[in-house]
């Protein structure tokens, strides 16, 4: 019973509940939505966002933000895409993408920690810079004619489930365990919760912030590979505007923008919610132009609701603490 109670108290549980409500209520309008095939499809189309939201969670946990994910996605997809198109091997293409993403992430991290540029500004500038470099590198053309073997990766299946989906889900669980169970993994949360406190504890704050940006860069690069593999080409605008969707998904999943609160599992569920809303609208035969309005108002409603709950909890905790103090004084008197 205790375990059940603990799970229901978790913030991720609320997000998961919302996902269930979304699926069931859309399923009542159109039964096809609850078919296994569609569930599989929604998972597959949200893979990109899940991977991006893993990296975003690392950065948000430390109390920073990364706006440049879309730019890194486009750049790394374009660079490794051109390499693949010219007959390169897939393994090296993956390594190239990860190096590009990691390098841009490193620059972001160094800028925010060493030069003390607010992360919002640093990554916003980096977004613009990576976009321009992508256009210069590809000479403004789309990267097309990717090899079939590369495109097939996103279609491979094991036990009827998409291979990439399996890998991503395992990674999410492993990263969740790393962030919540290991000592070093908990440092990220500690930094976001109280940076001065983390310094006093002897945590190398700058190093962990840089690591979080590098992780985010690498995740964006991997997402770029998934994008290229699923879509089959890399346009010059690949991943533009995606950063806001990813931040929205991560926040929906319960990761606080002020740092210190949240988990990758929640962020992943948030990513599934955001992509499911779009497909749900299709199944409910709502015209596509409602997409943004609905996801925007849902985001606002959920975040405000969540803030109100959090504030009530904080008030309650304060009251309890106050009561406990009064009791103690009576005892001593």
């Amino acid at each position, binding site marked *: 019973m205790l375990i059940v109670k603990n799970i229901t108290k978790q913030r991720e549980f609320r997000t998961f509940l919302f996902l269930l409500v979304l699926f069931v209520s859309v399923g009542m309008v159109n039964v096809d939505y609850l078919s296994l095939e569609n569930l599989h499809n929604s998972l597959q189309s949200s893979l990109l966002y899940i991977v991006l939201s893993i990296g975003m969670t690392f950065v948000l946990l430390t109390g920073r933000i990364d706006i440049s994910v879309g730019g890194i996605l486009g750049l790394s997809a374009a660079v490794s895409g051109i390499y693949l198109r010219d007959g390169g091997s897939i393994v090296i293409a993956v390594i190239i993408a990860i190096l590009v993403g990691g390098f841009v992430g490193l620059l972001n991290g160094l800028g925010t920690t060493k*030069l*003390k540029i*607010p992360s919002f*500004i640093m990554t916003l500038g980096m977004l*613009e810079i990576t976009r*321009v470099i992508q256009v210069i590198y590809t000479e403004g053309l789309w990267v097309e004619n990717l090899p079939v073997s590369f495109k097939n990766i996103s279609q491979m299946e094991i036990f009827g489930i998409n291979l990439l989906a399996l890998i991503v889900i395992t990674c999410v669980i492993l990263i969740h365990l790393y962030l919540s169970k290991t000592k070093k993994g908990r440092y990220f949360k500690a930094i976001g919760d109280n940076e001065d406190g983390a310094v006093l504890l002897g945590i190398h704050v700058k190093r962990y912030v840089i690591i979080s940006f590098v992780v985010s860069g690498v995740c964006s690069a991997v997402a770029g590979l998934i994008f290229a593999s699923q879509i089959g080409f890399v346009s010059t605008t690949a991943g533009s505007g995606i950063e806001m969707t990813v931040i*929205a998904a991560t926040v929906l999943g319960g990761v606080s923008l002020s740092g210190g609160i949240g988990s990758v599992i929640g962020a992943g569920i948030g990513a599934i919610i955001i992509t499911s809303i779009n497909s749900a609208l299709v199944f409910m035969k709502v015209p596509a132009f409602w997409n943004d309005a609905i996801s*925007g108002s849902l985001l606002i409603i959920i975040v405000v609701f969540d803030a109100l709950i959090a504030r009530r909890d904080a008030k309650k905790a304060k009251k309890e603490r106050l009561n406990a103090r009064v009791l103690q004084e009576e005892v001593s008197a």
Partner: protein
Amino acid sequence: MLNRIPKWNLTLAIVLIMEIIVFGLVNPRFWNITVLLNSFNDFIPIAIVGFFLTMVVITGGIDISFGSIIGLTSVVAGLLSQIVGLNIWLSVILAILSGGLCGLLNGILIAYGGVQAMVITLGGMLLYSGIAIVLVGLSGVSSYEGITGFPDSFGQIAHGNFLGIPNSVTAFIVMFIMAYLLLHRTKYGRYIFLTGINKNAADYSGIDTRKIMTSTYVLSGLSAGVAGVILTSYLGSARADFGAEYLMPILTVVVLGGTLITGGKGGVVGTALASITIGFLQLGLQMGGVSTQNIGLVTGLLLIISVAFLGISSDFRIKVKRMLIPKKVKWR
């Protein structure tokens, strides 16, 4: 007299003069005063929103929904005048007010709901552009072409002249003076600064910081509305995706103008200088033959470098000074 002007503004002014000299040497057409004045058309929306976004940033908040509000007001103005058939000036006023309404929603949720400004305006960004798209979709106008067919008098807002000075320059000056007076010459402006410096202290000294914060978002929304109307007039059609590409330039202008992104410090003069500097920079680069895509690289680098420069702590500065200037040896 000189030391009363903030150093950063002086730097910007010097950069601006340097730009005019250098670009003029590269391409003498740059020194043509009509070309320079007409180039205001290209960055007038950036400057107008920038002035009032500066206030939001000074209170310690941020607003990234203005791009969508620009698109929304554009669509509202177009729908009311062309589809509903209202008088063009009445629909313009209603459109600007709708921008203010969006700002009011942002402000109330942020100040009274206690939610982070980034999240709310992020949701607002999706929501307002979503509403604009829905409005276009419901009216049956092709979203690709946008709503066209505005009367000539409306086009005069952006294309007209007043005493030989383009209207965009007049609009720039008028909005600048309004923002300057509001922020630097009134009690309200001082309250904005106080809220940004220390919100709790401001609260204890009897300032209703929630009202102050909400009002800055309303002003930012209204200014985005004005920018949307001017943009619609300039381009002659109303579309939902106007303003989407303004997110980055407007933030750049505010930050480059010397306003701290963490709040409490900044000013409208810096924003004005920064917007002219960037506007002339883009014009000059174009005239100098740099392709349009590479200009984004320049503005991105400019943003990062300027903030890095502004954000360098005084400790670091002293350290560098010590390294550069050798210690004086005392002789007894």
